[in-house]
């Protein structure tokens, strides 16, 4: 292994300057990107007085962990968290199951209108949410689902176009021989799906699960439109309410923000590889 000085001398001057500049740029940008998040966390631990000091202090004198306790008493934060968990869990499970079923039908089975249906599914993906916002609300109010959690997770059980697309592309890459072999062995179609294909799709399933989780967790407009009872709110809506009611109490609003972001950070920490893989898969599949 060459020594440091050998390495240093073997690089041209140009290369060294390039690498140095690169590091500088990355560090500067890295700090810029991190500043907001650091500031949120730091502010969440300040006292009210410390928040409004000019010039700002970056670190609280003494971390006020009790802020985190206080935010639970001011508004039904526990309820918000439970609601969010319920909606997200139901929605994500629904999405994964339905997209597995539909994309299987669209890729592994052969039937007359397969391509037409797929085109239709793709078409709905291109429709901006805003066009269906109003009619969906009307539909849901007619069946009495307004001010319930149903509109937030039930539609996922019928499939989401993006996830179906992703899974289908992925499934198309799997060899047909496996299906045929299973059929020869006497497996029914449903069995083929669940016991043969699904285990092969784990990376696609993980990607769909992650994106669906994020999408349900972060959903703001849905709860905004459909929920009017305070006790039914989800976290995003809860943050908004906090902002509205306690907007001078920055430290509290920041504490709520940190709480809401925590599960996602943990998920990312654990499953980083899958996140990146999922983004790449959707990006490449989206071509």
């Amino acid at each position, binding site marked *: 292994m060459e020594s440091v000085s050998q390495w240093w001398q073997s690089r041209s001057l140009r290369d060294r300057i390039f*690498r140095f500049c*690169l590091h500088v740029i*990355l560090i500067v*940008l*890295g700090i810029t*990107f*991190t*500043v*907001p*998040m650091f*500031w949120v966390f730091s502010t969440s631990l300040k006292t009210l007085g410390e*928040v*409004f*000091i*000019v*010039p*700002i202090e970056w670190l609280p004198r003494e971390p006020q962990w009790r802020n985190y306790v206080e935010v639970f008493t001011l508004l039904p934060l526990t309820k918000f968290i439970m609601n969010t968990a319920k909606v997200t869990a139901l929605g994500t499970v629904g999405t994964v199951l339905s997209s597995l079923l539909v994309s299987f039908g669209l890729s592994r089975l052969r039937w007359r209108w397969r391509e037409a249906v797929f085109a239709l599914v793709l078409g709905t993906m*291109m*429709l*901006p*949410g*805003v*066009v*269906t*916002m*109003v*009619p969906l*609300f*009307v*539909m849901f*109010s007619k069946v009495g689902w307004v001010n319930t959690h149903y509109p937030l997770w039930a539609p996922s059980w019928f499939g989401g176009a993006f996830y179906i697309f992703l899974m289908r592309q992925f499934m198309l890459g799997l060899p047909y021989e496996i299906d045929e072999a299973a059929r020869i062995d006497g497996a029914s179609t449903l069995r083929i799906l669940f016991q043969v294909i699904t285990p092969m799709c784990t990376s696609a399933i993980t990607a769909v699960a992650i994106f669906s989780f*994020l999408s349900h*967790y*972060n959903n*703001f*407009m849905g709860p*905004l*439109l459909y929920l009017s009872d305070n006790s039914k709110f989800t976290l*995003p*809506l809860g*943050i*908004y309410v906090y*902002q509205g009611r306690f907007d001078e109490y*920055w430290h509290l*609003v*920041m504490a709520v*923000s940190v709480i*809401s*972001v925590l599960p*996602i950070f943990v998920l*990312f920490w654990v499953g*980083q590889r899958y*996140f*990146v893989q999922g*983004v*790449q898969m959707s*990006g*490449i599949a*989206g*071509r």
Partner: protein
Amino acid sequence: MLFSLYLVTQEWSILSPPEFVGLQNFARLAKEELVVVSLWNTSFYTFIAIPLQLAVAFVLALALNQNIKGRGVYRTIFYLPSITPAVASAVVWLQIFNTDYGVLNNLLGIFGIPALKWLWDPRLAKPAFILMSLWSVGPSMIIFLAALQNVPTEMLEAAEIDGANAVEKFRHITLPMVSPVVLFNMIMGIIGSFQVFTASFVMTGGGPQNATLFTVLYIYHLGFRMFDMGFAATLSWVLFLIIMLFTLLQVRLSDRWVYYEMG
């Protein structure tokens, strides 16, 4: 979808049964000043934010493509902001942009720049949103990174043997090979930007003086505050058509500059 089309021909305020008004809603499109305002706001935001986002994401991806230490850390730092709930981001940036106590003005103050009103100044509000949007370039960056890593090294090596320098290699090999991905990010970005809602709803409510009244926000306002469902539906179809138009336009023009390996 069909119901939405039907709504376009009605005037309806949820509270009472719909009234058929035919194509009157279309005529209103031309009369209501806020329609043009909201479309202008949305377009301004989209067509400035997207090129900037693409540039930043691409530069970051290029940087991360080099063999440097700490790539994983940087990748995490740049990607994390994009998965935070939009509401949380909005609330945080609301305070960052605060005129007196915000982080941004404090930092600018160090360089001697006077405090700017950002979200409370009609001229600075949209640039503020654009600035904020640059924070979430994570996913685009990762997609670009994947594309960059897919550029075949044999080609680069062959070019180097033929005497190409770094700039030439970039222009003639790297860029064309990643052009389909650039197109993808651009199309997805524009579709997404045209529908900006949460941030403007939480942070400014459309102000100051309607400077951040984006179209989706306006539609929400029309439908759920003014209960003017028919007109809201009309406007949403207009937005849809505009998005479709731009998407098709981009796909058409892409033949000129996008290079596909399969031909």
